């Protein structure tokens, strides 16, 4: 048994202990909009609660601009929160100085999307990893250091170690680079890994290799993983729980299988029905319209209401709370509230299926003008 595995065991002395490792309560981040006398803010993240448990993967799914990466950066304390709290083992973890930050990153590590940008191109794998090992594990030298390096590279399946340890990043493929980035994060022996789109820059054929590696780390080291992605199918494959975000708010959460197979929130339904799936060509949300709202002045009430086919007045005025919609599942939609003025939800499929994607008359008009032009 290697040292990190032993440490993981000792940390997990009490398997019944189900307290979250890292927890966010009422997380909020607003970015000021630049400009003279501008007091506008971008409401990037609002009222997000999140729990990461040992040996569990939570996926955060949403379109670009929905605030998922902001959450990762807040949890990594790369920027201060506007409101809310970050708790590590139940203790307030707000970092106030460099020493505190270093102690925090030893326990919470981040993996970035772009392995081409996150590794310094002028340094070898050995240098990158040695720095990280020395920072987090003390001043190792000689054989001790070599052992640490080879243990790290073996853990991310870059073997034989000699073949990779003296390479520069440009000599490695994208998947190998991402493995080095993961090894660097592991050198701190973290309790939490924040993986911000770790596979979206990689080739299709090697993505699963990285996901399977992360899953292996979760199982063997009992690391808590936050997996951020826009690909809801990979969330289903990899994550235990899935949270869906829309325009800075969590709209649905639950175990991955139920969220993807039986989505409750209309946005989740739209998302699931929009993903390409050759198995089921009929289950398509066609003719859907609209796009994500401006986060400077987000819509009042539910932020999805301008695009939602079922929205009523209550959706346009009051923010829906996360309501229980089944075993361990929550959805922020008034349709599941127990009140008389709630909207009636139907199937997104039926609603969107009816509208044509191209207007007949318009087409005739365009064809008309073009023939005139040719004449």
């Amino acid at each position: 048994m290697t040292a990190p595995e032993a440490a993981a065991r000792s940390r997990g002395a009490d398997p019944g202990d189900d307290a979250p490792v890292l927890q966010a309560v009422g997380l909020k981040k607003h970015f000021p909009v630049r400009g003279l006398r501008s007091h506008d803010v971008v409401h990037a993240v609002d009222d997000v609660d999140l729990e990461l448990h040992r040996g569990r993967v939570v996926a955060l799914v949403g379109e670009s601009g929905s605030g998922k990466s902001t959450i990762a950066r807040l949890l990594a304390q790369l920027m201060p929160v506007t409101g809310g709290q970050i708790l590590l083992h139940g203790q307030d973890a707000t970092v106030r100085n460099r020493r505190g930050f270093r102690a925090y990153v030893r326990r919470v590590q981040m993996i970035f999307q772009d392995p081409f940008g996150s590794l310094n191109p002028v340094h070898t794998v050995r240098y990158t990893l040695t720095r990280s090992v020395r920072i987090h594990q003390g001043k190792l030298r000689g054989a001790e250091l070599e052992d640490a390096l080879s243990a790290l590279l073996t853990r991310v399946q870059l073997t034989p170690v000699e073949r990779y340890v003296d390479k520069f990043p440009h000599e490695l493929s994208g998947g190998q680079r991402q493995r080095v980035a993961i090894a660097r994060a592991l050198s701190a022996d973290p309790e939490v890994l924040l993986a911000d789109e770790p596979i979206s820059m990689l080739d299709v054929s090697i993505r699963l290799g990285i996901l399977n590696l992360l899953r292996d780390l979760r199982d063997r080291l009992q690391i808590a993983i936050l997996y951020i992605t826009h690909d809801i199918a990979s969330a289903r494959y990899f994550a235990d729980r899935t949270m869906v975000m829309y325009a800075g708010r969590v709209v649905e959460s639950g175990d991955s299988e139920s969220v993807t197979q039986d989505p409750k929130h209309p946005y989740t339904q739209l998302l699931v029905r929009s993903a390409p799936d050759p198995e089921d060509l009929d289950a398509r949300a066609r003719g859907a319209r609209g796009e994500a709202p401006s986060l400077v002045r987000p819509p009042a009430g539910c932020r999805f209401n301008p695009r939602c086919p079922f929205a009523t007045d209550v959706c346009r005025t009051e923010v829906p709370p996360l309501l229980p919609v089944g075993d361990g599942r929550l959805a922020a939609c008034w349709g599941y509230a127990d009140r008389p003025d709630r909207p009636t939800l139907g199937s997104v499929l039926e609603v969107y299926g009816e509208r044509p994607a191209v207007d007949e008359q318009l087409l005739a008009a365009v064809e008309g003008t073009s023939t005139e032009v040719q004449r």
Partner: protein
Amino acid sequence: MSVSTFPGTGRGVIPTVADPVLEIRNLSVEYGYDENPTKVLRDVSLTLNRGEVLGLAGESGCGKSTLAYAATRLLPPPGLITGGEVVFRGRDGVEQDILTLSDKDLRASRWQDMAIVFQGAMNSLNPVHRIGRQIVDALQAHVPGISRRDADDRAAHLLELVGISADRVRSYPHQLSGGMRQRVMIAMALALEPQVLIMDEPTTALDVVMQRQIVEQIAELRDRLGFSVIFITHDVSLLIEIADRIAIMYAGEIVEEAHAHDVYRRPRHPYSDGLLHSFPPLRGPRRELTGIPGSPPDLARLPVGCPFRDRCAFAFDACATVSPRLTAPAVPGDTPGRSVACLRHDPAAVTAAGFTPQPVPDRLSL
């Protein structure tokens, strides 16, 4: 809704008689002018029929974008077309080789015959001009004698055609979202009613909901306006939905070409099979997936034989020396017209090289 009513699958509208609008024959491209150029495309042949959506899939660096740029003579240096021809057949049946056109003819042919929507098209709009003006520019450059007013009208109509309200003609690109900018690019490409539309990863930078909207729109417009599409992407699952035929590229060669449905249900090349098992399914049983071991080869140091053999579960001794050619798959009862470049399907070539042919594995002969 039945499959045939969905324009995206388009399987009901494939012309039964092949009517090629674009034929790429033995196209070869090299990068670098020195003694040791990198052979990025090696003898690629591909036919695009009228009204068809042809999907081109493969990983980054396999040459799919290079193929599109070479076929339109847009290849930037140090790319060099070293052989082959690209024959375009107009509506009147006149054939011309794009690669030998004079600069003047080429300029006239571009946009009018073949238009291209670039990768990351959202950033290829000029940020300092209004989008209406950019469409009008293209019209005025290619339609002699068009009045400013007609051009303005047409620009507005084109925007409406792709689902952007006409009052947006006076917007600047930064005032539009990514999806809308992508639509503007598609509107511009359609401005002169081209017969071939080449789309290089048109939806990669977009979210799935927006991707679906754009893809639907392309399919609808294709059905009405009757142009052909070459759709380049790394997302095979998307292609299976929208393409009529799919060509799968690996390391600068086409390794399999077949109808979309056949590729999905009955892949014949081990790489196609691997690609299809590289993305987790959204529905159906959850299964353990492995992807494809290893990584794509370095095109500058390509080994002899099959370029996929190091990652292939079905490689045998002949794969190290014999380069596979596109042949009909050795599976009885296969749809005619499909082809695959794998020695498991080509016992004749294996025997000719003095090796013992191996049978097609069960997995590849479903």
